[in-house]
């Protein structure tokens, strides 16, 4: 394979007891982009990342990260990647500055350089005022930022971000997204896991969807969406009572599946052809069915996930061991 791939994995397996947490994962992550790893809780995202970051040894399969084998050359991997785990990866009982100085020292900086680097990072991440406070007093968003800052004391060639925005408010989430975009702009490859379809949709250039330890789909956002269907038409009626009639009519006119939404006045038709849709809408009006609003778009990642896995993305599947 070419060196344009930051990660090449084939047949990765990890067993926990008799549960196959990761069950034969193949990955080809291109360098210099954001790669999204999408799946519900317990799908095997974190376990895969922990193997790639050399924290877990796979039970089967091989992987090379930036050209280094994750088992035989784990130190080679470690010297070029960073991991921001799902849980606190900084010391709560130390201040922001102390955490960063400690990591800089561990990476070989002199005392002075370490302090300088800590100040620089804290300022860049908007944490200068909290620099001398214990991390346990930080808000969720600040915590996440110091976590990421700790991962880029030396800017890594590849960074693993495990659910970087889980539990954050929208503003903090946007800050993290800005940081991710800046990282990529500066040439770092980012592999991020997410349960949020929107996040993967917004950030990632390519996405792998994982469920029950297996990759069930892979491609660019557009490819994934078009693999599910051309798009969907959302219609909202003025009178909910007319919905069965509208449903029937659209199904006939568009020759496709039409499903009622949870909103009693709304329905969705799988259809992407604008001209056909325009005619169908005109026919609705002619039949005396008033349309309050409609929209035509690509399927959302939610729809993609539902189509691929047979269950919605939000569903928190309990893993049965």
């Amino acid at each position, binding site marked *: 394979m070419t060196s344009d791939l930051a990660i090449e994995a084939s047949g990765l397996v990890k067993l926990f007891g008799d549960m196959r947490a990761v069950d034969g994962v193949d990955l080809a992550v291109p360098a210099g982009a954001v790669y999204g790893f999408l799946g519900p809780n317990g799908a095997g995202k974190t376990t895969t990342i922990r193997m790639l970051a050399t924290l877990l*040894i796979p039970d089967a399969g091989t992987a090379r990260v930036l050209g280094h084998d994750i088992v035989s050359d784990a130190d080679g991997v470690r010297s070029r990647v960073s991991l921001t785990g799902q849980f606190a990866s900084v010391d709560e009982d130390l201040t922001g500055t102390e955490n960063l100085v400690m*990591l800089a020292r561990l990476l070989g900086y002199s005392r002075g350089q370490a302090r300088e680097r800590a100040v620089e990072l804290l300022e860049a991440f908007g944490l200068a005022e909290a620099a001398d406070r214990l991390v346990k007093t930080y808000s969720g968003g600040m915590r996440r930022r110091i976590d990421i800052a700790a991962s880029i004391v030396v800017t890594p060639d590849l960074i693993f971000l495990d659910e970087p925005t889980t539990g954050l408010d929208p503003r903090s989430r946007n800050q993290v997204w800005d940081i991710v975009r800046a990282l990529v*702009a500066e040439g770092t490859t980012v592999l991020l896991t997410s349960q949020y379809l929107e996040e993967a949709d917004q950030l990632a250039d390519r996405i792998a969807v994982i469920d029950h330890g297996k990759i069930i789909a892979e491609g660019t956002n557009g490819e994934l969406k078009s693999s599910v269907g051309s798009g969907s038409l959302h219609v909202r009626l003025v009178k909910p009572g007319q919905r069965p009639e509208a449903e029937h009519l659209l199904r006939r006119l568009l020759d496709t599946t039409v499903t009622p939404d949870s909103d009693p006045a709304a329905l969705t038709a799988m259809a992407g052809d604008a001209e056909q849709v325009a005619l169908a809408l005109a026919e609705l009006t002619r039949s005396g069915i008033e349309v309050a609003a409609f929209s035509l778009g690509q399927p959302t990642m939610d729809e993609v996930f539902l189509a691929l896995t047979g269950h919605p993305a939000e569903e928190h599947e309990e893993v049965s061991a």
Partner: protein
Amino acid sequence: MTVAVTTRVDDDLRKALTNRSRPSRPSALSTSFTFGWRALLKIKHVPEQLFDVTLFPIMMTLIFTYLFGGALAGSTTEYLQFFLPGILVQTVVMITMYTGVGINVDIAKGIFDRFRSLPIWRPAAVVGALFGDAVRYSVAAAVTVGLGLVLGFRPAGGVGGVLVAVVLLLVFSFSLSWVWTTLGFVLKTEKSVMGVSMMVLMPLTFGSNIYVDPATMPAWLRAFVEVNPVSHLVSAVRGLMHGVPNWTSVGWVLLASVALVAVFGPLTMRLYRTKQ
């Protein structure tokens, strides 16, 4: 829904992200010292954690000296000469268990993942924590000996004897700590680490010659006391402090220390590598 994504990245952030020069890998010693520094910072921020190394020895020394001293040795001053080296050993040996607790907490909180993903000398995280603990042990030793001197403890071995005794005690404690680091990796919660450590330490410290001369004990117990490394440590420390060094005991203590590190050091590191 297609909002144009504005990559509004301020200059600070951009500058902070362009630091690709990686300094050369620090030495094993320097890495361990950084972890030791971390342990000291934690003491600085949470000074309450020194209670167990200051108040505990004071309490134990006072209680045993005044409660039992007269009955056991005729007078409290007399008993103190015998008892102080013993309680010193008990205090320091007991607080070694916090090493395992600390590691268990680090694992539970997730920071160990960060350390394990760094290109560093791997035992440093554990060795460094032990350096920090050595400071705690020293504080406990200083408090106990200081209190003893105030209460009338008069070591014939002088300053030199006391210092050598304390160093020997620190060496043994450092070695014993590896047992708790192993436990810290094996057991699931901080409470279970504490519980199991206590279950091991109680018989080791009480089933020894710390409090009384084993001569009055039943034969089976005496047999245990005589092979107990803590008894050898107490004999060695007592001898050194009173100016009548018992080199056989010193030898056994050093042997036990080497054995502990040889068994539990690699075991800890193996668990460290393979921790899920």
